[in-house]
């Protein structure tokens, strides 16, 4: 039975952050992972708080967070640690060659693939939309021939609404050697742009806009898979601002971030065990003694002084529900909060400006991120809960998913 200081269960943004922050404190860490990280499905933008509880846009996430109810994970984490987590992340991102811009004090508005603008807090330069778009007179939307899920014309229609129709708009289509086979994805194009030929061809096709300071070129998320290297090369060649959009998965930027984390974890000697699903634990009193994971045909036991639960809540099987009003956390059998009463479970419209009751399902903790029962008493002393497993917030509604993941992952590592 291998013993490490810390075991992190789950390799989404919360788990990766918890593992890296723990390792940077000199702890030995084992990361148990099932399925590839959810970052391939994640924009890799760090939203902290986009909308308040009446769905009004939040101008300053820092101020918005101060006004949240005490049941919200941010209130448990505390502003000091949230700010530290931001610094921690920005330092890490810079060190691994994709610096992130932004702060807790204002929102960056990032164009989506359909031309709406989404608020976020931290973004790599290629995705820091509003910072590059400000003051531009002309927007060029560059589609890619054969690329699904990115339609320049639709995008322009919507950009006119969000940026104003007094700007000049133009659409172009970039040719690649990728056509003729299957449908291509942004990831295919990004991999082409990892090659010197790809960058050459791509930059050449944008030369008509070279040096035009009043113009920005908007492209899907295709500027390479390796940090911001490709963004820097293309920007320097065309000497014009170039802006990526968010889009449908696979998410190139999420994959960039994932690759950075993996490299950092390797550099910090974190042991990553792939393809192993943690299915249970053994606890004595208020201490977890070990967790039990599937290892193919048999089970394997892992022990640590401290366990960080980052299994992704409902969306990733971190919380399950077989019968109504009885959500379960299958590894430690922690108490799970959920709204009571079927009528409060969801509102009729899936895409609405009202929160969904079910979305707040999760584990309640105290300010140390240790799980607590309904009386507020610790259930386990050496287990910490992070990311989407936490209860009391609706990440889709308020745009806070990666912010909570990052801040809680960082704080749990510190405890």
């Amino acid at each position: 039975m291998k013993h490490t200081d810390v075991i992190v269960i789950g390799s989404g943004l919360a788990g990766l952050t918890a593992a890296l922050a723990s390792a940077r404190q000199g702890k030995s860490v084992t990361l148990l992972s099932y399925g590839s990280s959810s970052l391939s499905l994640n924009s890799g933008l760090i939203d902290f708080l986009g909308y308040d509880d009446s769905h009004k846009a939040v101008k300053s996430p820092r101020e918005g967070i101060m006004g949240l109810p005490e049941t919200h994970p941010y209130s448990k984490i505390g502003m000091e640690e949230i700010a530290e987590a931001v610094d921690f992340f920005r330092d890490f991102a810079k060190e691994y060659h994709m610096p992130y811009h932004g702060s807790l004090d204002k929102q960056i508005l990032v164009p989506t693939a359909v031309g709406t603008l989404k608020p976020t807090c931290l973004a790599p330069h290629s995705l820091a939309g509003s910072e590059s778009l400000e003051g531009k007179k002309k927007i060029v939307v560059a589609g890619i021939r054969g690329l699904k899920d990115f339609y320049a014309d639709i995008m322009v229609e919507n950009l006119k609404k969000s940026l104003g129709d007094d700007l000049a708009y133009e659409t172009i289509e970039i040719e690649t050697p990728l056509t003729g086979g299957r449908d291509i994805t942004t990831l295919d194009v990004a991999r082409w742009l990892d090659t010197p030929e790809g960058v050459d061809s791509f930059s050449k096709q944008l030369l008509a806009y070279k040096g035009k300071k009043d113009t920005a070129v908007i492209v899907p998320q295709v500027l390479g898979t390796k940090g911001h290297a490709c963004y820097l090369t293309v920007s320097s060649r065309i000497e014009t601002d170039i802006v990526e959009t968010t889009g449908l998965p696979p998410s190139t930027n999420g994959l960039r971030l994932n690759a950075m984390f993996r490299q950092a974890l390797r550099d910090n000697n974190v042991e990553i065990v792939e393809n192993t699903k943690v299915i249970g634990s053994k606890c004595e009193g208020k201490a977890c003694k070990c967790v039990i994971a599937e290892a193919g045909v048999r089970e394997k036991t892992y022990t640590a002084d401290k366990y960080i639960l980052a299994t992704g809540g409902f969306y990733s099987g971190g919380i399950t529900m077989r019968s109504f009003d009885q959500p379960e956390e299958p590894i430690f059998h922690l108490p799970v909060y959920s709204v009571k009463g079927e009528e409060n479970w969801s509102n009729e419209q899936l895409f609405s400006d009202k929160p969904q009751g079910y979305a707040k399902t999760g584990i309640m903790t105290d300010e140390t991120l240790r799980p607590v029962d309904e009386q507020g008493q610790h259930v386990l002393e050496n287990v910490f809960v992070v990311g989407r497993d936490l209860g009391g917030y609706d990440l889709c509604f308020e745009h806070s998913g990666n912010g909570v993941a990052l801040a809680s992952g960082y704080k749990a590592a510190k405890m």
Partner: protein
Amino acid sequence: MSEEKDKAIYSADHCLSCTSCMSSCPVMEATQEYRGPKLVGPAHSRMHFSQEDYEDSLDFCSNCKSCDRACPSGVAVSTLNMLQRGEYYRTHPHKQRDQMLAHGEDMGKLVRSLPFGAACANLGMKIGKSLGVFGMLGIAGKRDMPSYASQSFYSWFKGYKQQPSDKKVVFFPGCFINDNEPQVGIAFVKVMQKNGYEVLVDQKFNCCGSPMVVTGYLDEAKEHAHNNVARILEWKAKGIPVIACCTSCSLMLKEEYGELFGEDEMHEAGANVYDAFEYLAIMEEKGELNTSFKEVKESLMYHVPCHLKSQGFGTPAKDILEEVPGVSVELADAGCCGISGNFGFKDDKYEISMKVGAKLFERINISQADEVICDCGTCRMQINHGTQVKPCHPIEILAKAYGE
């Protein structure tokens, strides 16, 4: 009945179309011709199993299983592909090379039955390669076919005198270790002897069937599964585990039989099969591993085979070898090597296979490590082909640490 979750055919409906498998598929990264695991595996197999409808790009799946490991929902994507491939070849003719690529075991037996068979076969393969015979058969002409060792593992084993012991394990060498790299099996036997175990062999075992599954000879693979499962269960009844050093063999015996064919006995038998270092790590947990190692001054770069990653027990070879004084182990962490069993031997897949392996080759070429280690025989061939470095199995380093 086997639990639903253990049978691949039921797992397609768990697919959410999230694209995790697409981002992880090394073949998709190398070619635009493959439509990818999501569409070919779960999406298409739902239709395929109810009607005559074949996806052309199914042939591009190398069965490296990166998709299965990427899937957050437990879909056995690659196995769905292999089941479809098996269905396809029920009604379609095989390519000429398939017979040869799927039946290394038969070739080996033939070679061993002739006087000077190994030497003649090796010479024949050299001549064949220079005359372009393999290319004509549809086998990648740039590759060397695995050469036959002058003495097979089984033949060596017959002449080797072990210390008898009550603690016994059965060693499943698999075709490649038996015919091509018996030194791996020899190292295993010596390591187990140093740990007070007596190693048994069972020549009634067949080839695990992995080369057949990936080449579309599914019925034949099932016959092998039935034979091997019966043997494993017989050993299980005696309380003796079966251990393999080849990670594709161990994965097939442990998990893939059950996934592919879904019979209860297959799951039962799988639980009695171990990868060599998995077993050594379990011994260590019980405090039973002999850790009086001699110093071995070597820095090692470890390419972890895909089929070992799939087994979900981490990298015990790294943990154990790092306990040997003088040894350091660095993970290559550069993805699939690209050969994936017999995939890279097919002439029309050779370029893809080399493109997939390029990251690993580069990592090894710039590495300062003294030696490259890898548990999988065909990965070792690919590394050798792509870098000129000759890797060994981690068990060979451990044998060295015991002074063997």
